[in-house]
């Protein structure tokens, strides 16, 4: 009951994403001027806890299970936060990926997972190089953040370390 009430309160405060544009970053189109948005604050209260910690159960079926550990702080969580800063900010045609990259907080350390959400300057520079070489912005972002994520500290090691 306490969990339900807290979810209810958070919904009414507008903190949780509503159904349409905000939480999903706006999926509209057309020529109307659109503002960038911030990633929503996520409330995991609806998910059942696992043990005494912050871990939640997302899904469980007969042969697989997915838990959520919001306390995870590593290169991939930092990458996720950077990606969200950009994808929620993106509001074509007025707010491009380039302008979003320029406007989001830049990381101040080589360990972005120890800071608030940020995007490393190395990734912005890598993105700009790709675009300058003729790659369209979306594929450029995909390449520098996900396909060849060497601009983001710690990601390569996270992918290759057993």
């Amino acid at each position, binding site marked *: 009951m306490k969990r339900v009430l807290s979810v209810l309160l958070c919904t009414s405060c507008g903190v949780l994403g509503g159904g349409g544009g905000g939480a999903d970053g706006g999926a509209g189109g057309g020529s109307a001027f659109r503002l960038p948005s911030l990633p929503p604050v996520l409330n995991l209260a609806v998910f059942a806890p696992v043990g005494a910690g912050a871990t939640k159960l997302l899904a469980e079926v007969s042969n697989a299970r997915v838990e959520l550990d919001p306390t995870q702080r590593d290169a991939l969580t930092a*990458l996720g936060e950077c990606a*969200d800063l*950009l994808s929620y900010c993106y509001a074509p045609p007025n707010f491009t990926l380039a302008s979003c990259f320029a406007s989001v907080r830049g990381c101040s350390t080589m360990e972005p997972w120890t800071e608030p959400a940020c995007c490393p300057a190395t990734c912005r520079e890598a993105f700009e190089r790709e675009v300058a070489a003729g790659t369209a912005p979306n594929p450029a972002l995909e390449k520098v953040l996900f396909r060849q994520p060497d601009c983001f500290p710690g990601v390569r090691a996270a992918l290759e370390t057993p």
Partner: protein
Amino acid sequence: MNRLLLVILLPLPALAWDSVCYEAGGRSCSPFAGPQTARNRWVGPSDEHRQLFEQTRAQAGLPLSVSDPQTLTVFTTSATVDIGGTPAPTLQPAAFEQTTRAQTRTFTVGELAQLPDFSYALWDWASGHETCPLADGTDATLCHDFASHMGPVNSNHFVPQSQRLYARVHALALARAAECRPLATAVQGRFPEVSRACEVEALALEAMGQHFLQDAWSMGHMWQRWGSSTLEDFPGATVEEKRDKAVLSALVSGFVHGARGVLQALPTWTTYDVNDAMCAPHDDVRFVAKDGLVSHAVGDLYVAQMTAAQKQRFFDCATSGLLQVYQATGMSLGALGQPAQGLSSVDPTSDHCFGQRATNEAIVRGMAIQLKVIGLQTTIPLDARFASWMVPQVARASGKVPVAKKTKNEFRLSLERVTTMARLTAKDDPQGTSLAEGGLGDFMGVSPNGAYASPAAYEDPPLPWGPGGPPRAVTLARVFHVAHAKEWCAATTTAQLDALKAHAQDPLLDATSKTAACAACTELAVRHLRVGTAASWDTNNEPLCQALVPTPAYVYAPGPGTPRALAQQWCCP
């Protein structure tokens, strides 16, 4: 070969319109997979696939008798199969001259529209779900468990694989239907059960195929989910790695598809209404048909809320397919009535029926989790940060364990990429369909299903199905032995009839075995029995095989008596 423990915490509903299995007392089948589901009926609350088929039958004007229960007598041995720790009689058909038991299989054609959610193919159903069509030695129950085995390879329930699979099964149904028409002529009303049985079999094939057509009109299926219908296609150095990737890509596909079936059943979620897109109605969830029609639609568990355009298109396709098959038969089950008004005749295998795709905006909505909490609509987006928090686990013999760190991070990065790029694409072109057309890219190295074109090795064999064919064809011909009377008439020799008789008269058989052996002998012998002697017989009472094949084997039995009574006497005096 690593055998996975059967750890069923939730019977995961199939990623499809809903399919159900209920035991005689009304309880959901337990286990909800494998041999138990082959022994029970698939009728009851939420049997959406069956409902769609029955509505299709009615709208197409097929006679009511198509919906009648059918009962097959299957001759088996006294072998047993383990079902949840209890031995049960096998349903696998035996060679007739080895019969020691007779089992019955009762079903309606409409129920078999659910078959692909329980079985890998019609031959698998005919085998009682007692073998593993994946040919990896897995226990039959586990092999048919949706979450662990069928789900990871159910990419052929999604477009475009579902289009190719429906086309193959529909062609098989048409080919079988075409065999029924001359059968009806040959028996000339004397043996109507044979032509009716043939038509039932052809319609059973079509019902099974229509499962994939039905799925193609479920909103959650209007996109290329990741994966192949064949485990070998998945990346990985070992079978375990391949299965892990198949399981994980199926799980993520389920979230895009609509997660009500998974989440609603969790104990802590039962007070919520998990109206999760893309299956639940949502203002931003639409499909675009090949001809440009744009419409809202719903999916699994919401069949009663199908939109008008969705229903119109679906029933145009489904009735067209069903009519093609029925009209190809001799229509012994009854004359066609008037189809429902407003239907159009279309090619059911065409892009008109399988070209619909979810919009980019719909895909992004699908990637979030929608639910109502005390009536208030809430959305939890599956964005990159959310993905980064995920800790996937897969089952091993010891229970569920976290995947290797490298796999976990590959999972997280892949999902971060998919969710991010989908969001960007949807903002650029919300009403486009590039994401559904494979534009989501790979997930953990698993491609969207359009990249995998080969049919699965477990699909039904081509016709003819008869005693001289490969094992699966023989299984089908034994279970549908009345429908395949022609093949059995052609193949059964005098020596084989004598062997049937000898088996039925074996003094070592116990009473139950003898009853079954006599029944099998009678069933085959009556088809070859002439009343009289080899020198003089009743030519007004020729047996079935005389009508079906040029030179069948004959047995002779002087009257008086009906052919069946005389056959029984011949087998078991």
